[in-house]
């Protein structure tokens, strides 16, 4: 009986979803938690850093947006240096992001470091 349920669950999860291009780690959960409880932002940053580090070490492609959103969380926490480094990595890995990343890297006037508004 348990096995049937497990199979059903697996089917429900895999049935309609795609095969999986990327290893997302806890990206969605980190953002969700930071919106739900802004006190968890520090944990989210740590979690994303760890996950990205793991992907880089394993030479796996970092999914779209992870570097940049990590960078934005760092920027909002006042860590401009690491933020910029991550915006550069997003730009290098994903050419589609170039316009936005250049604006973030060069134009300090666009998103200023300030408290998270959510």
């Amino acid at each position, binding site marked *: 009986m348990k096995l049937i*349920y497990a199979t*059903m*669950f697996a*089917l*429900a999860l895999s*049935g*309609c*979803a*795609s*095969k*999986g*291009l*990327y290893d*997302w780690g806890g*990206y*969605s*959960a980190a*953002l*969700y938690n*930071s*919106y*739900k409880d802004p006190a968890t932002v520090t944990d989210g940053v740590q979690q994303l850093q760890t996950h990205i580090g793991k992907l880089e070490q394993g030479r796996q492609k970092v*999914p*779209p*947006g*992870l570097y*940049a*959103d990590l*960078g*934005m*969380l760092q920027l*909002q926490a006042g860590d401009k240096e690491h933020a910029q480094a991550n915006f550069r990595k*997003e730009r290098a890995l*994903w050419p*589609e*992001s*170039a*316009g*936005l990343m250049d604006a*973030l890297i060069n134009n300090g006037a*666009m*998103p*200023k470091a300030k408290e998270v*508004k*959510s």
Partner: protein
Amino acid sequence: MRAIVLAAALLLTGCATQQAKPDLSAFNAAKPRSILVVPAANKSLDVDAPNYLLTTLTVPLAEKGYYVFPVHTAKTVLEQEGFFDGDQVQKQAPEAMAQLFGADAVLYVTINRWDAQYAILATTVTVDFDYRLVYKDGTELWKANKKMQYTPQNQSSGNPLADLIASAVVAALQRAKPNYLPLAQMANAQVLAGEPTAIPNGPYLPAN
């Protein structure tokens, strides 16, 4: 226990819905590479719904092979520009929105429902979204609606008392803290990757 019931509910309500297949000719002609997800317009009573929904759209879009702009970064930039909610964002021209970010296409979502209806032994959780993808020149590429409900009462063990207790346990859990996220994730995954509404594969997903 919750997982089992959720799986059962999803199997029952999930892939069965029939919808018309959207016209994808404009989509196939435009071949967008990158998608900007903007904060959703909210018709539900839950003020947190747009933020929570925002965290569930990147994965299914990127897994379809598109570059998805970092949602938290985009949201923050929009706030810097004075746009604090999705209703405001949706009033702007898609062309301007796409240009601001350098995006090929913009995904607009309207939250119609994000609620829980309480009954004695079962709580029905419902999410209902309208999706609309617009190309940077203003052409609508794709639109769809997805509604998902989770009512934990589908699986019978054959023992009426056991069923009753199981329902009561799940209802109590749901009442304490309805969990919309799995439903929202499932809605997004199915509408974007499941037939008949699936969007074509993007450049990072090999053709099927």
